[in-house]
């Protein structure tokens, strides 16, 4: 971990409540994300995973409840350039090259633009030879690599990933999932990630929270007992298979509860 940087924060959510019109997305929601760990949020579509992520990022505000990021508010962390978020679509600016997109993040975070660091990072995420290419000419996987580079260049203390590899094919997805996480693990970052894929959640995280259908509750809190760095062979380890079974069972439990609730109405 770099000495000039505050340690990664923990994230404490207390009684968070968020509704969109009549739809209750989070109804008193409590959870703590440990500092320096990667936590995956898994749950059915529309259960409120992304909403939670957006609340942490300060992109939305909760109707009530408390959210503290290492004792600070989301706005304070954002303002200090301590936060980075990646979405399912890479959301690169189409008129800027890969380099230009990464440089913009530094500028927005009010950091000096460090050309050497940018080029080094882009090479490390595997974009060698495409530094001056615009997103339109990059493949889906390459765009996600650039988006991750954009996130990491500001050396955020908090990294938020909203299905970061959701828009690419299975093979690329697995490749990105193996290659990229070591980059942010080595930086000592608190990472929260949303995913639909149980396999991806296990591969990328230290802890998995399985959420129920709306309004979200934590159904299961699973610790992933695999070493780092992760490798594809780990899929055959008992720890992997146990985690997979636990998470899948919890998801099925949630679905059954939802069906029961519907039938009861």
């Amino acid at each position, binding site marked *: 971990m770099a000495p000039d940087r505050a340690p990664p924060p923990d994230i404490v959510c207390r009684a968070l409540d968020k509704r969109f019109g009549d739809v209750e997305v989070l109804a008193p929601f409590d959870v703590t994300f440990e500092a320096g760990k990667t936590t995956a949020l898994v749950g059915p579509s529309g259960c409120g995973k992304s909403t939670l992520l*957006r609340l942490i*990022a*300060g*992109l939305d505000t909760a109707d009530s409840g408390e959210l503290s990021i290492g004792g600070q508010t989301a*706005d304070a962390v*954002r*303002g200090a*350039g301590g*936060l*980075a*978020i990646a*979405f399912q*679509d*890479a*959301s*690169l*600016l*189409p*008129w800027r090259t890969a380099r230009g997109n990464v440089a*913009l*993040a530094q*500028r*927005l*975070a009010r950091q000096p633009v460090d050309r050497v660091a940018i080029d080094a990072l882009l090479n490390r995420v595997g974009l060698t030879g495409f530094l001056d290419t*615009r997103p*339109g*000419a990059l493949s889906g996987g390459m765009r996600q690599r650039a988006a991750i580079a*954009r996130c990491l260049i*500001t050396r955020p203390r908090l990294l*938020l990933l909203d299905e970061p590899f959701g828009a690419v094919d299975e093979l690329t997805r697995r490749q990105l999932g193996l290659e990229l996480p070591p980059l942010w693990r080595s930086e000592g970052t608190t990472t929260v990630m949303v995913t639909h894929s149980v396999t991806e959640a296990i591969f990328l995280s230290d802890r998995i929270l399985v959420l129920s259908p709306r309004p979200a509750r934590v159904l299961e809190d699973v610790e992933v007992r695999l070493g780092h760095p992760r490798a594809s062979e780990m899929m055959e380890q008992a720890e992997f298979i146990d985690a997979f079974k636990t998470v899948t069972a919890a998801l099925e439990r949630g679905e059954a509860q939802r069906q029961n609730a519907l039938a009861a109405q």
Partner: protein
Amino acid sequence: MIRASSATVHFPGTRMVMGAVCVLAAWQGLAAATTGALLVAGPLEVINHIAENAGLYARAVGVTLSSAAWGFLLGNLAAVVLAALAILRPRAQGVISGLALLTFCLPLVATGPILRVVFGPGEGPQITLAALAVYYTTYISVLVGLRAVPATWLDLVTSYGRGRGTALWRVQAYAALPYLVSGLQIAAPAAILGALVGEFTGAERGLGVLTLQAMRDLDVTATWAIASLAAVLSIMLHAGIGWIANRVLNEEPPLILAPPVARGKPNYSRSGAATGALTALIALSLWWGIAEISQLSSFFFKRPDDVWVFLVSSDTAAQNRAELTASGLETARALLPGYFAGLGAGAGLAILLTLVPGLSSVAMPIAIALRAAPIVTTAPLLVLVVGRGAVGSAVLVAVMVFFPVLIACLHGLSRAPGQVLDVMDSYAAGRWRTLIYARLPAMLPAFFGAARMTVPAAVLAVTVVEWLATGRGLGALMALSASLSNYGMLWSVTLVVAVSAVAGYAAVARLERAVLSVFASEQVQ
């Protein structure tokens, strides 16, 4: 098209009322502030005046609306047929679009008098000009709509072994309906404008005739009354069509800003120059063919070779050219500053409105309503206010350009791609930096699309105001040539104006392509 096709613009009732009240209050205030100057008649005065002359105005409105309605019908019918043809014969699309644009760029100020001679008295010229004023925008809208169909839908039709015609009828026609409605919304005010200009050329009845009378008598109240009537009619038609469409289609018509920069499918595409040359050749043949087939007197219906003689090979050719050039320069001096001022003001205001949250959503419906007002009919008013110099013409051109650019830019600013705005927000980038890094670049395609589409409108505005009000430039030269039966000059000016407008359009399109290749690369293949 700048990906605006799927966007909708809402017309919340309260906002419209608020907007209308603001406009009326500003107007009344202006009238009160300039009392005695005989420039501005306030809304109360105007309503009184209309009430006192209710019968007269009702008859005039009836006549104008009838011409506009016929022109609207015929022009839109032609537009739909042309668009269908362009889709069925992709190879011909470039030429069809080129011819359509060229016809649209013909200056109404010249075609009006020529049509008057062809048709004599009656409604013929009004209806034709109304049709000419509407067909291009509808053609573009329908074409955009027909092309907006996902390729997989067409593949589905093909997979059942059916052809292009079936695809057009079963799939594309329905998909294009909302776009057609958008086109019709823009067409309604344009039809009224066309009918008015037709009436200016020597009709016996209608709002256009009353306008000329009011101008001659320097009747400020009547001038304001007619401009208001035309504006209210246009806005009502625009809103009415939107309302009906909403009921029938159950969706808001898309906001169409500009057609995509012309490009064919790669395997069909001729080079731009070849398409241009072919279009010019066909246009010349059509011109000559119509003249020969219709047996119209070559005294007033000049052939291409007559124009050549007039401008190049006759004894007075040099003098003719000099006269045309002098007027042309005069027009350019009003047109260019006005055009660029309109672009700047439209984009500038859009940016300002975006910086104040909430303001742009209030401004949008007002701007859309005001765009529907036939701005050219305010020419007499404008000259009353700013005088007969080049400034008057420039201001009118600027106003004409302003509204479409404002609407396009507001729209462009509101839609940065993907979740880019969220990314900006996650760095707490703030309003200014989000504007500079994300919104402004995202606005550029919309801006250039509007800049291109407003070229013909700007030319129309400058020639009409020169003709009706300032008595300078090409507009006045056309009017003078028409009244002196100097048809050689009239046809020459018409040709020069149309070709210049097309050239201006093409120049902006070129610039637009360059910009799009950087800022919206997915749209230029």
